[in-house]
């Protein structure tokens, strides 16, 4: 009896492990169909692959140390798919520096310890590029391993400066995001200058470095502009979130605020926004970034109104009116390849990152880590999809990005304007990206 | 035909033999005692009859049907109710609920209620404390409850495992008085006891068990001299 019971347990456990341990991998050979549907936006610098056959170019062996499951997976899965799509397109067009790139994606399950282990295995497997998670807290373990081995640690889309300041992790870590200094400042300028909101209430999510620095840069720039902070509160945006107390506290302050700023992430943020609207508070709400955006917002609060976010593109699946036709082309190609359209804007970042990686390798005519990073730093401003961006030798976020402002009314998201902040708030002497614009 | 008949019953726990080869029978309306020291296999015998442990070999027949290997619930439905060692009343149930639970195998709820009222009349202390948690009763009262609970299933045979254990002498007297009364009313009883003298006095017949088997079986009902004789011989054995 006992013995058979134990075997039962072991079998269940084993089945679970098997299910959880699967990982996907892909190479060019299986993706020619998708490549033919490549967007017209494949504007990667056309230094043609044919001319490149330099001896120092080895095939890129890309390991995606990225979550398929866990708390960060909503921000990882589609960006990783977009990254793979871009690589497939470049392979179909002749490869990168004349070589076919390969990629392998292993699920980190949003677990830092597991992330380190997977990164070490990637190094052992001969990775020359490690792609890390979309968030600093979850990317850092893999980026640290990559840095120690002089392998570029390209984050899909992290926004906190600790991942790009060349110091915290090191010079090998890089992201296609413009960074929270940029987004928080842009949001403050939109609030104060465009909308004329002079008073703000900041309801800060302390879940991630990302959410915290986003809030800090909004507050910094808003104060510089002359805005007043009429109240502040904090919550932790995990699944246990109980918004009732925050709403009670907000209820009294709401009357004095022109706008409620919620630097947070989905899905917790939508629960908070719903609770605020249910309480009858209709003050405009703004997320000074892209992590509260997309179909999760429109799907869960079908009548959401007076909500603003700052994504990287206005994705056709939920948003109308992006001025750049490449966005729709990208969305269609993504849909053709993966069977469903992007449900948030992050995939454009990682798509641009992959295209820039191709350009960097072409420029360097080399695949060793420092040469690739050096090429990233010196690439000219290039429009890979949504507008011209470039990296610099002292800030590994992108500069020059045209951030979108999106407005939600009656459950529909609409493009409002392109925005690049006039000035980045100066609140953190350790952030080289404050002066990089 | 005997009501209960065990023949060649052997009970092992792993490699340890608890009962070697036991033959025993209880006739309709008979009060039989199974006496012996701690550890001679008495409790294992009770458990085997009740279906809690399965003998390695031998046969157990009840009213001519083989019941060896059946589940406790099935054996109870056939008519063997157990008053287990240590009473094992449900301490967190009320006295009344303990009686109700005792009637689980009977299908007619109204009849069960009626029986419950009868038990409370028969055991006044149970009636008095019907709504009290059974764990609050004294040892003797709990023993009465355990017996009443077993009677709630209207058994054909009552199987008692060490009912006098841990009770004060006067209370033990009361328990034996109760058993005699039950016998007079026609109940069949198999009593397992260490308290040999009293058991032999009360029973129609007794079996004396020593490490794994019966060594003596005699009719002894009400025979004080015989009881004393077995008691002293038996005690002597025990101390040797």
């Amino acid at each position, binding site marked *: *009896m006992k013995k058979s*019971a*134990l075997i039962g347990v072991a079998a269940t456990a084993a089945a679970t492990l098997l299910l959880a341990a699967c990982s996907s991998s892909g190479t060019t050979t299986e993706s020619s169909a998708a490549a033919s549907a490549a967007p017209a936006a494949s504007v990667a610098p056309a230094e043609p692959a044919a001319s490149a056959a330099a001896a120092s170019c080895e095939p890129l062996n890309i390991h995606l140390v990225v979550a398929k499951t866990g708390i960060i997976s909503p921000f990882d899965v589609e960006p990783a798919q977009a990254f793979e799509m871009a690589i497939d397109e470049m392979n179909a067009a002749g490869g990168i520096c004349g070589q076919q790139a390969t990629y392998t994606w292993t699920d980190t399950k949003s677990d830092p310890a597991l992330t380190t282990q997977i990164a070490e295995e990637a190094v052992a497997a001969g990775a020359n590029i490690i792609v890390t998670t979309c968030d600093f807290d979850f990317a850092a373990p893999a980026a640290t391993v990559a840095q120690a081995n002089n392998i570029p640690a390209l984050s899909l889309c992290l926004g906190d400066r600790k991942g790009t300041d060349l110091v915290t992790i090191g010079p090998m870590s890089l992201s296609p995001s413009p960074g929270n200094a940029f987004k928080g400042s842009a949001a403050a300028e939109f609030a104060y200058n465009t909308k004329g909101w002079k008073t703000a209430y900041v309801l800060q999510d302390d879940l991630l470095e990302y959410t915290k620095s986003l809030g800090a840069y909004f507050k910094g720039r808003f104060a510089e502009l002359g805005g007043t902070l009429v109240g502040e*509160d904090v919550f932790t945006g995990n699944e246990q979130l109980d918004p009732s107390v925050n709403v009670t506290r907000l209820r009294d302050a709401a009357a004095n605020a022109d706008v409620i700023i919620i630097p947070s992430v989905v899905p917790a943020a*939508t629960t908070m926004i719903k*609770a605020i609207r249910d309480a009858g508070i209709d003050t405009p709400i703004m997320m000074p970034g892209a992590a509260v955006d997309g179909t999760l917002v429109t799907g869960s609060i079908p009548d959401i109104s007076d909500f603003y976010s700052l994504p990287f593109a206005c994705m056709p699946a939920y948003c109308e009116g992006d001025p750049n036709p490449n966005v729709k082309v990208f969305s269609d190609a993504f849909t053709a390849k993966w069977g469903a359209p992007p449900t948030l804007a992050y995939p454009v970042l990682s798509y641009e990152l992959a295209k820039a990686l191709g350009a960097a390798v072409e420029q360097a005519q080399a695949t060793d880590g420092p040469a690739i990073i050096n090429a990233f730093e010196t690439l000219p401003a290039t429009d890979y999809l949504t507008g011209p961006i470039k990296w610099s030798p002292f800030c590994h976020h992108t500069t020059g990005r045209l951030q979108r402002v999106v407005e939600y009314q009656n459950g529909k998201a609409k493009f409002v304007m392109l925005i690049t902040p006039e000035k980045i708030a100066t609140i953190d002497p350790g952030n080289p990206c404050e002066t990089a614009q | 035909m005997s009501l209960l008949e065990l023949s060649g019953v052997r009970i092992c726990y792993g490699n340890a033999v608890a009962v070697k080869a036991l033959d025993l029978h209880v006739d309709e309306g008979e009060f039989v005692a199974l006496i012996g020291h701690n550890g001679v296999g008495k409790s294992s015998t009770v458990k085997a009859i009740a279906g809690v442990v399965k003998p390695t070999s031998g046969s157990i027949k009840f009213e001519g049907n083989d019941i060896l290997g059946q589940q406790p619930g099935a054996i*109870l*439905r056939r008519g063997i109710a157990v008053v287990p060692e240590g009473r094992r009343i449900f301490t967190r149930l009320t006295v009344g609920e303990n009686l109700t639970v005792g009637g689980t*195998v009977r299908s007619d709820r109204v009849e069960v209620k009626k029986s419950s009222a009868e038990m409370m009349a028969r055991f006044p202390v149970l009636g008095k404390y019907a709504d009290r948690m059974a764990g609050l009763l004294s040892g003797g009262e709990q023993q009465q409850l355990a017996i009443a609970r077993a009677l709630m299933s209207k058994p054909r045979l009552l199987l008692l495992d060490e009912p006098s254990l841990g009770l004060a002498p006067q209370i033990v007297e009361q328990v034996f008085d109760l058993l005699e009364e039950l016998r007079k009313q026609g109940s069949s009883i198999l009593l397992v006891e260490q308290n040999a003298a009293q058991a032999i006095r009360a029973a129609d017949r007794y079996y004396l068990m020593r490490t794994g088997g019966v060594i003596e079986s005699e009719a002894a009902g009400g025979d004080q001299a015989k009881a004393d004789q077995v008691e002293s011989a038996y005690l002597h054995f025990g101390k040797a």
Partner: protein
Amino acid sequence: MNPQYIVDAIGTGALYSLMTLGLALVFSVMGLMNFAYGQLVMIGGFSIILLRSQPWWLLILGTILVVVFFSLLMERLAFRPVRNATAMTMLVTSFALAQFLQQLARVAFGANPKPLEQFSELSVQYEFAGLIVSRQIILTLVTTILVLIGLALLLRKTNIGIQLRASTEDVGMAALVGIKSNRVIAAAFVISGTIAAIVAILFFATRTNVSWSSGDSIVLIAFVGAVIGGLGSMVGAALGGFLMGFVYTMLNALLPMELRVFADAFLYTLVIMVLLIRPGGLIAAKGVRV
């Protein structure tokens, strides 16, 4: 202090209380701490998404049926085979089962949270003497009290309830009086599953999405609630769960902003203190093995 906080805290407390009851019931019957209980609530959440367009009574009934089905399946396929094994084996089984159901949900519904279109019926708010009370809070409070009374009546007044309690105390003796433990334990899983379904409806009424990991925090709250309430005691479980929610919300309400993010740490410090003073929980049941 704003008295509204008390209303908020009671709302959360009532919900946590209900969560805890469902877990504590199965524990008290078979000594099993079913860590897959949270997954039942998660399954309830997905049922709500699938049944969202149905009339409300069908949504409630359907969700209860789906969750009870999974609860019974859990008992039959995972827990019955290990019922006589050690407590540790059962615990490991429940963890493995929780993992399995999570992965199953992930395969079925994807890694991303699924948006849950809200029942605006439940977010209606009323004002009494300056206090704002939502329909969801009233419903949660009423349901929790009804479930507690219902459980008390069931356990005290019905045969199955008395058999449940008898089995809780002494499974071996319960078999000797003819109680069919399979039936009794299945009944406990039916009740536990029903409670999990009701929790899912009330819990997700304030959420905007369901994900495969939605059950994790729920089972943790219920477990700690049951422990501080006193394992094996229904009233204790209800009280323990209520205090978890009430105190957590009050901490969030009253702590200064710098400390507010450590509300969890304060809460669990209090839990440890309660257990140091009363190791058996607030209302300790006798004869419980852990």
